[in-house]
């Protein structure tokens, strides 16, 4: 009985997360074999937001950012998104783990 309740609770958390993904403030990022376009993403502070990440390069890329608590591997041509928690005003870096020269920043205002 307790296991069932826990499972239902977990399902509710997951489903609610999915339901809200569409109303979120959205920004886009392109990863291209070690180049980010744009290098700087501006988002409003204090609200959850979504980054749609697209790998337009010919090699795999990994969007990684510990400040944003997000990590995502993208095969060439793949597109996905990450939902980031509300940020206090400031700058939060991210990079491509497979092309370490690629460095970007999310600016929350």
């Amino acid at each position, binding site marked *: 009985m307790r296991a069932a309740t826990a499972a239902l609770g977990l399902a509710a958390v997951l489903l609610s997360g999915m339901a809200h993904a569409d109303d979120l403030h959205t920004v886009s990022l392109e990863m291209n074999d070690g180049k980010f376009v744009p290098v700087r993403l501006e988002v409003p502070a204090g609200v959850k937001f979504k980054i749609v990440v697209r790998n337009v390069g010919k090699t795999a890329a990994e969007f990684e950012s*510990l400040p944003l*608590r997000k990590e995502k591997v993208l095969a060439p041509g*793949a597109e996905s998104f990450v939902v980031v928690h509300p940020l206090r005003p400031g700058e939060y870096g991210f990079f491509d783990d497979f092309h370490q020269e690629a460095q970007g920043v999310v600016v929350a205002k």
Partner: protein
Amino acid sequence: MGQVLFVVWRESVEALLVIGILFTWIVGRPDSRRWLPWLWGGVALGLAGAVALGLVILFAGEVLSESAQTLFQTGLMLLACALIVQMVVWMRRHGRTLKREMHTALESEVGRSHGWGVLLLAAIAVVREGSETVVFLYGIGQHLVLFEFVLATVAGLALAGLTFVLLQLGGKYVSWRWFFRVTEVLLLLLGAAMLMSAVDNLLSLEILPAVVDPLWDSSAFINDGTAAGGLIASFTGYRAYPALTSLLIYLAYWALVIVLMRLPRAERKPVQA
């Protein structure tokens, strides 16, 4: 090609450390060699899992929702963290009494469950970053000449061998006791790092509340939003923008580890003939 090598090394160094340390612990004491097959079994299982997971990411990425993928990764990390702590505590308690236990009825039971622990930990260590490496290599493989690709793989294996040799040498040139302590701490740090990553995921999925987020901003000290800072963070659990929950769990981890390490050794009950 140098970049390929560097990425492969970086993605596998965590697994190499875990497996290398376990290997050195196992062969360091003649009584423990029986766990070597479990270790290699775990590595094989991990490699198979990494390839399977990598292929899923490459060709069926949309089938699994992000939440499901994240939960799966989180589960693996929490399990690995628990196994690390269990392994370190176990070695502390049984390291010295191993020989005596060989002659009691406990031997097979203790041995088998410990073997499973070794296997599982090795497997998880490989799967974690292994699946990412598979995706990375697949993307690279499409553009490199086959010869260069094979060369990079061989070089990667050589690096793995080098890590092992270094650990073995370390075991020979410093006292076993000192070496054991250092590798214990290394493993526990890795466990802490995995725990922090798991907590990050749980915070992200809003299964855990952050309470205060961030508690501080130490990016001026080490900025974990850069590749270099991220590397340090992945071995220590450091966070430049920690949530209060993350800090509390981090402290609780170390408190628990200290308590477990200080517990008196389990009593051996003599077997009645």
